């Protein structure tokens, strides 16, 4: 795995993953911004209250609830969708790294990366 060709392929993969991350951030920021505009238009003159902690409504906390809010074109639904895309971005990076290590036939690192991926998915789906 130490040949120049492998190193080059490795670096190409890294650059691809780097660009993937940047694209993920740009897309998610755009969705958040879009949702923010809707939210401000509808609720801009209501009072802001973050002094007292109340959990965010349940339909903005889960993947299925967020999808439903987006379907009803709610601004906050779009914001949460953007944030969900953002959280998914590093997870996608880890997932892609598994392919990169598999292509280099690096079983040890395929396993290491799988462990990280499982922890991440557990966090996102835990109730």
């Amino acid at each position, binding site marked *: 795995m130490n040949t120049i060709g492998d190193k080059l392929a490795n670096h190409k993969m890294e650059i691809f993953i780097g660009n993937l991350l940047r694209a993920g951030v740009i897309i998610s920021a755009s969705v958040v911004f879009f949702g923010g505009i809707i939210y401000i238009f509808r609720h801009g003159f209501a009072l802001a209250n*973050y002094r007292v902690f109340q959990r965010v409504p349940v339909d903005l906390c889960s993947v299925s609830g967020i999808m439903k809010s987006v379907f009803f074109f709610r601004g906050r639904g779009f914001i*949460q969708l953007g944030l969900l895309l953002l959280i998914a*971005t590093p997870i996608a990076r880890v997932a892609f790294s598994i392919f990169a290590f598999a292509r280099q036939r690096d079983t040890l*690192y395929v396993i290491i990366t799988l462990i990280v991926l499982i922890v991440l998915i557990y966090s*996102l789906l835990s109730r």
Partner: protein
Amino acid sequence: MSILIFTILIWFGSIIAGFLGSLTGLGGGIVIIPLLTIVFGVDIRYAIGASLVSVIATSSGAAAAYVKEGFSNIRIGMFLEIATTVGALAGAFLALRLATPVIAVIFGFVLMHSAFVSSRPRDESLCSSKPGRLATILKMNNVYPTAQGLKSYNVCSIPLGFGFMFVAGIVSGLLGIGSGAIKVLAMDQAMRLPFKVSTATSNFMIGVTAAASAGIYLNKGYIDPGLTMPVMLGVLLGSSIGARQLFEAKTQKLRTVFSVVIFVLAIEMLYSGFKGGILK
């Protein structure tokens, strides 16, 4: 305050926090949480949720630039992410159980540590011993580009670094920050990596670590869309401006000023935490 005005103010504050965070390399979270809680009176749990999301944004946004330079060591990063992601899960579950004044006090101490670390010059002492068995098995020894061409480096004390990273993960999950200061410390002091490698690898890890606890925070209703929207957009904008300035600005002076600011914020957080219930 109306939501419109509140959103605009938070957005401006977050731009400044992101700018300072990227200029000094400490990350936006370390400024944004005291800003939200002390200046805007936001409950620390909302602040943690919003900060965590912006940490993912800045780390992922900067990754492309770091990767192109060829400093980040993907294998070291991925191996240590086992420690940071498991730590982040533990930290997030801990945050659900701790009273908010306790979280504020812990935040105050972590802030002080960051102020201390950033005020001192980093001292580069590379791992000079022969490649160890563990580092060889894990294929961590690598090369990095310098002015004199590619230079190779070894990795020291991997178990110690792994332990530090577990702590960094807990802190990140508990407080909603990237805890880059602890990550860099683990890689500089324990594993003795070249600066540029540890900085780039730390950035690589911060987004993945934050994503591990962000899922929990989202599910538990800590990530409020109305608050997180201006914070994330502001920090992202501020940090990309900061990254561009990095090559020109006199960072050392700014670093000192920033340390003082962080120290004052730390005192405030400790005070509000103790007043808020620990002493009662």
